């Protein structure tokens, strides 16, 4: 899926509804200088699509790198690079994994580091690609446009347009294909099927119309195959080595704190089918919110309050983190049973949302772990920029959080590692022998040129559902 936006006239800015309908040409080539062009064509756009252009470049060969560019009115766009998914026997895949990229909280240096390494097959973004808040409402390092919380189609378009002007974000889009899903902030904080925590019915319009506006802008502005009536949850295959099931855990969920489903019945059936697929080794699940059960110990109030703001829990320490799978335990139990009953191996949840870094073994019974079996692993990536514990407690990194991490691991024996302070990205290596997740942390989220360094690597050996 190739994406760009064209500005045919100076007034045709995002969300304006102005400007003519135009036709944009595109070329796909096997080389960066377009000597071997394999596809050529054109696409029409206009104000009805906010002048965004999406081309589904079909007929390409599997497992190959391609280069593409757009042409309009004698101008050529910068060259983008993409890669098709491999088929058959695959020996290695490498993904960059990110989530929670709040423009107002810092620079997207993580994106630049992933772009510059140049060795990824794709970028997996697990949601909260952008945030709905107005300036200063959630981070004040740089200001959101438009200067208010976005609720209408024009405003969501403008916000998407602003994010797409970030040079580091542009760089990462141009470097690899992206595999994306949304979490809540693409619409509004703590969204569920009928509303959101950060939505005031009436004053901010109806949830139905707000959500439709957010989804339409998302559809226009994101490089995703998503036609009318399509679901955003979907499955990608990488030969016999891996599948990646991207979930939508906002559109079908019951309201937080009420009994009901997180996935909805159709998506649950889809996920069961993904996990029972006997033709594929690694069943990767692009999972916007944390799957593993998590008990939070009593913590110093300042830290507890900060953690609660990320997990939706009481600062005094409670069992339930009800915006995550913890709040929908029937769905989680059904999946854990499915994995155990059928002897399913090599399921790995790749998770975002919580702004912090975690590595879990998913036990059949957390109460009897480690004596009972594990059925999967879960690897959680930190935010690109969004606040985490040191930001929220306004303490230096690696001070107040260290004791919290230790306490969490003591109470949750299936939690193998946690780091609550750092921002950055992860790189996931998938091979028949193992999955390796490497977390890279930024020195300073507010520096565009922040260095990043490898902070932690964990290995999930094939067939073990364990973290080493």
């Amino acid at each position, binding site marked *: 899926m190739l994406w760009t936006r064209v500005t045919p006239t100076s007034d045709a800015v995002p969300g304006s509804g102005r400007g003519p309908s135009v036709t944009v040409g595109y070329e796909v080539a096997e080389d960066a200088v377009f000597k071997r062009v394999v596809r050529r064509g054109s696409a029409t756009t206009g104000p009805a699509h906010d002048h965004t252009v999406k081309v589904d470049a079909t007929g390409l060969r599997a497992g190959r790198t391609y280069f593409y560019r757009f042409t309009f009115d004698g101008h050529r766009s910068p060259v983008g690079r993409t890669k098709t998914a491999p088929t058959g026997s695959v020996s290695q895949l490498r993904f960059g994994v990110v989530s929670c990229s709040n423009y107002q909280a810092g620079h997207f240096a993580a994106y630049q580091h992933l772009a510059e390494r140049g060795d990824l097959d794709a970028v997996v973004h697990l949601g909260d690609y952008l945030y709905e808040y107005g300036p200063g409402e959630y981070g004040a390092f740089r200001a959101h446009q438009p200067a208010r919380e976005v609720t209408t189609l024009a405003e969501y378009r403008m916000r998407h347009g602003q994010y797409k002007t970030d040079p580091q974000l542009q760089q990462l889009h141009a470097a690899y294909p992206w595999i994306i899903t949304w979490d809540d902030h693409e619409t509004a904080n703590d969204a569920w099927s009928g509303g959101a925590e950060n939505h005031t019915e009436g004053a901010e319009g109806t949830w139905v119309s707000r959500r439709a506006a957010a989804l339409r802008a998302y559809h226009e502005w994101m490089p995703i195959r998503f036609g009318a009536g399509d679901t955003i949850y979907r499955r990608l295959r990488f*030969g016999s080595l891996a599948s990646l099931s991207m979930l939508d855990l906002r559109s079908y969920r019951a309201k937080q704190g009420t009994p009901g489903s997180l996935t909805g019945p159709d998506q649950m059936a889809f996920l069961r089918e993904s996990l029972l697929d006997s033709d594929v080794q690694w069943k990767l699940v692009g999972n916007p919110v944390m799957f593993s059960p998590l008990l939070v110990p009593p913590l110093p109030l300042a830290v507890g309050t900060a953690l609660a703001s990320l997990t939706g829990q009481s600062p005094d320490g409670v069992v339930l983190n009800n915006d995550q799978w913890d709040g929908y335990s029937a769905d989680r139990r059904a999946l854990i049973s499915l994995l155990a009953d059928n002897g399913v191996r090599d399921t790995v949840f790749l998770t975002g949302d919580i702004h912090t870094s975690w590595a879990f073994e998913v036990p059949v019974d957390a109460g009897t772990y480690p004596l009972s079996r*594990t059925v999967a692993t879960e690897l959680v990536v930190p935010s690109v920029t969004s606040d985490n514990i040191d930001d929220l407690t306004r303490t230096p990194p690696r001070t107040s959080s260290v004791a919290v991490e230790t306490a969490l691991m003591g109470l949750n024996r299936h939690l193998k590692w946690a780091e609550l302070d750092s921002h950055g990205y992860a790189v996931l290596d998938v091979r028949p022998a193992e999955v390796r997740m490497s977390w890279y942390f930024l020195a300073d989220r507010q520096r565009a040129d922040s260095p990043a360094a490898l902070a932690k690597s964990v290995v999930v050996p094939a*067939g073990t559902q364990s973290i080493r």
Partner: protein
Amino acid sequence: MRRRSFLRAAAGAVVLSAAPGVAFGAVRPGRRVYVVVLDGLRPDEVGPSLTPHLVALQGEGTYFPRARSLPVMETIPNHVMMMTGVRPDRTGVPANSVYDRLQGAVRTMDRASDLRFPSVLERLPALGSRTGTVLSKEYLYGVFGTRASYRWEPAPVLPVTGHAPDVFTSQALRAMVDSADPDLVFVNFGDCDRVGHSDVTGSVARSVAVRSADAQLGSFVTHLRETGRWERSVLVVLADHSMDWSLPTALISLQPVLDADPVLRGNVVIAQNGGADLLYWTGSEADRPLAVARMRSVVEAVEGVLSVHEPAWLRLGPEAGDLVAYCRAGWRFSDPKPWSNPIPGNHGHPATSPIPFLIAGGDPVVRKGVVSSAAASTIDVAPTVGALFGLPSPHGDYDGTVRREAIT
């Protein structure tokens, strides 16, 4: 009548027998293949702490982390599949325990006549190679009968478990290699499984048994190196099934449920296989279709039952009866009585299908340090062994696949 000849080896502690006309002691050149079954080993037990020798062998071979046991995930059918390369609807051996309609009794499939399909154990000797079996369990010794050129009768056999401890199996294996040197040896180490059955989840005893089985494997590799055989050896190391543990509160007894039904009462016999129950309609032939449908609906409603299948759907033959019921993970069947199956460790159900599977060795034909995403299974052993010896496929071909990922 020509008789098998006998040899006392290892200071008289091991007695081996040879097929008529086959001598002991002949040292011959050529490739050796050793199929080593670590009975009941779970793939998640494979790691540097519990199975250091198996992990070391991974570096000298090709490992298949997606490998599976096939229905019914029991010892006898999977050993039979390993040596024949075909599914139970062709071998005639679908489970450890079946209801024998002629005999009118539930019995173990431990007779040589139960196995109807030619195995590599007798097909290789027909081409001039020699084969040997070192099987720790009496019923395996029984079902393979005199097919191999050389065989060891398990001894001493423990009462209750019906198997020889690994230390004796290991001694017999070395004696077999030293005194007969067969081209193919099929060996089963039973401790891991036997301890697993009586054990509770992941206890120290199970860990000790796994470590001990791994140590036997290590000592066998050392023996092959020390006797100069390693450079022409191929080892296929795998399990026949894995193991799942249940508490007495998670026990399914179908017989009383079936007998509570007015139509089914007294007309259904169950062959209990731990994690799988085979159900046989014994009433009139005319009533069978309706009765089987009724059995299915009754059984599907029982808590702990995962699924109910027609045997043909699982590639099981008529020996498997009319329906096969699987339990869920953490459960077990106990039939005909709730006290019939007191053991916590069981297999036979899908939760116990993941197995370790490794092809290693010093023979240059083996690909070293490879991990493959291919879906290997127990049924692939015979075709792979056959390919290593240039043995033609059997009549009707194999159901399994040559694991070419592991060989050059």
